[in-house]
């Protein structure tokens, strides 16, 4: 498996990757509390972006409702914990199951009836909005008043119940991100991965070659929703509060997809680099604006919008493809880079 993982990656790329990983593992030794929360946020978006990238970047189906899977994962794990005292590690498989079930429903409805492109995107938004308003009226899950996990002052890290210091959450999300990265890397080179890319480039042609497009598009949405659910469980236990207005808000879905789009859709490193750039940028702007006493609400997001505008205009394929050329990581054939 290791061999399959590394067989065509240039040596200096491995060194670079190892260096970044060591840096990330060592980061809590140097980072203060604020920087650590920013890093957690970055890794959270790197992870969810990676999950989204499977559906859009690999299989070419634009989902604008990934907050649904995050939200379902979060609510299921939180409800089990709050109402029955069932810990997150038992809740996790249940959360994944429910998230996958919702992904299966959406995928089945959409792909059976040939719903694609913009229509598919709107369908995913619709389901997410549906969940948002529905959860608003579900009293058992706190309704619009929100659901809260019991918080007490933990000096000891309780990994089993996920109660503890930010450092624990940092390593947890780092582990998730690394696992997601490796999984995506393996999938891209698997049979399924090549089928996905064929579907992404030209669905008609893929079908005429005998690829069961419905089955593989379903596989993509199932894997993607399954991978997104753990991020929800993490979200619930890290933030300890859940509001439908926040969790299923359309902006949550958009935040998830910004990383991979800025970094490079369909690439392995895109979601990670994009998450670093966009979250880092956003936090830096916040700091800068507070520094100059310019604290008008909305100012940060206007700059955010302008930066986004500039990035999409200047870098049509995202940051990773030109960066990869710069670092001479343009290994092997062009399997992971999406050509416009």
């Amino acid at each position: 498996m290791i061999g399959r993982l590394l067989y065509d990656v240039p040596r200096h790329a491995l060194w670079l990757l190892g260096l970044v990983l060591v840096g990330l593992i060592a980061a809590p030794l140097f980072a203060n509390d604020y920087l650590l929360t920013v890093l957690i946020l970055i890794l959270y978006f790197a992870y969810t972006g990676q999950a989204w990238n499977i559906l859009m970047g690999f299989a070419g189906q634009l989902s604008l409702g990934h907050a649904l899977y995050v939200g379902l994962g979060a609510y299921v794990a939180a409800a089990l914990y709050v109402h029955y005292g069932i810990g997150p590690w038992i809740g996790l498989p249940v959360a994944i199951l429910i998230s996958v079930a919702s992904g299966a429903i959406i995928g089945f409805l959409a792909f059976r009836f040939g719903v694609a492109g913009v229509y598919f995107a709107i369908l995913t938004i619709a389901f997410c909005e549906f969940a948002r308003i529905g959860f608003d009226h579900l009293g058992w899950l706190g309704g619009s008043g929100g659901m809260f996990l019991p918080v007490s002052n933990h000096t000891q890290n309780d990994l089993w119940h996920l109660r503890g210091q930010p450092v624990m959450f940092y390593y947890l999300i780092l582990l998730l991100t690394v696992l997601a990265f490796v999984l995506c890397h393996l999938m891209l080179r698997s049979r399924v991965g090549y089928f996905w890319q064929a579907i992404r480039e030209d669905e008609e042609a893929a079908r005429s070659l005998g690829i069961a497009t419905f089955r593989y598009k379903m596989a993509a949405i199932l894997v993607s929703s399954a991978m997104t659910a753990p991020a929800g469980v993490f979200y619930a236990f890290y933030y300890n509060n859940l509001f439908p207005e926040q969790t299923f808000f359309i902006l949550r879905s958009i935040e998830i997809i910004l990383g991979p789009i800025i970094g490079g859709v369909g690439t392995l490193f895109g979601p990670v680099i994009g998450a670093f750039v966009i979250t880092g940028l956003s936090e830096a702007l916040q700091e800068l604006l507070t520094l100059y006493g310019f604290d008008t609400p909305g100012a940060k997001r206007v700059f955010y919008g302008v930066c986004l505008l500039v990035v999409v205009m200047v870098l049509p394929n995202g940051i990773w493809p030109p960066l990869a050329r710069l670092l001479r990581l343009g290994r092997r054939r062009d399997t992971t880079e999406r050509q416009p």
Partner: protein
Amino acid sequence: MSADIYLNVAVGGLLTGLIYGLMALGLSVIFGVVRVVNFAHGEMMTVAMYLAVILFANYGLDPLLMMLPIAVLFFVAGYLMQLGLINPFITRPEYMQFILLLAVAIIIVNGVLIVFGPDAQTVQTSYAFDSFAIGPLIVDATKLYAGLAALVVASALFAFFRFAPLGKAVRACADNQIGALVVGLNVKRLYALSFGLGLACVGAAGAIIVLVVDVTPPLGPAYTLLAFVIVITGGLGSMSGALIGGVLIGLTEAMAGLFFTPSAKSMFAFAILVLVLLFRPQGIMGQKLS
């Protein structure tokens, strides 16, 4: 007695639905011709709403009169935006266009927040509390004027596309871009024209809807979603579909507000969307998907 309530609410929903229809018409024209989905549609509408509020508050100008200048202003803005900003993105993948317009939407919604603040703003006309009684039916005068105004603007647009040579050229361009190029139409200019017309609809709809709805910055994203629901229900790219979809959604929202709670009304709009996508993905008036 109870039947009257339903009828009154239905008429109110229908009239609001006409304004929704005009808003969605703008989205439909843009998508039908330029093939770009305007993800900043509702946000642009709130700008028109704020303009109407300012003009009314400072100069006492009635939004129904200001509809025309605001629409013209939006036309010019849309024309320039298509030429400068969106044209380079036409050949790029869908998600890039989405991010571009999303960036525009983020800038608008937060720009509006900075300039006007988070509080709801409203227009109080002299006829705000008038109503007409037609038998047992009581029609709110404001809603009636607003609905009729929306209908007039929509009809003008229909007439333009049906009879004016320029309108026919735009339709030709929407039907077959290569063909339009071959017969010597300036496609780039026609795209800009279409985007301008789409935004003119939004401008007019925004000026009209302040009569019925208070404006706040978060209304933008909500209206963007609503416009999507409407055009997909009616048929993306179909002009009559947008109006029909608008009325349908307006009616649904009004009825859901009556039978359930008003806070759950958009859930029913989304339920309709899901049903349409399942059983008639091309929308009520749309052509069969290829």
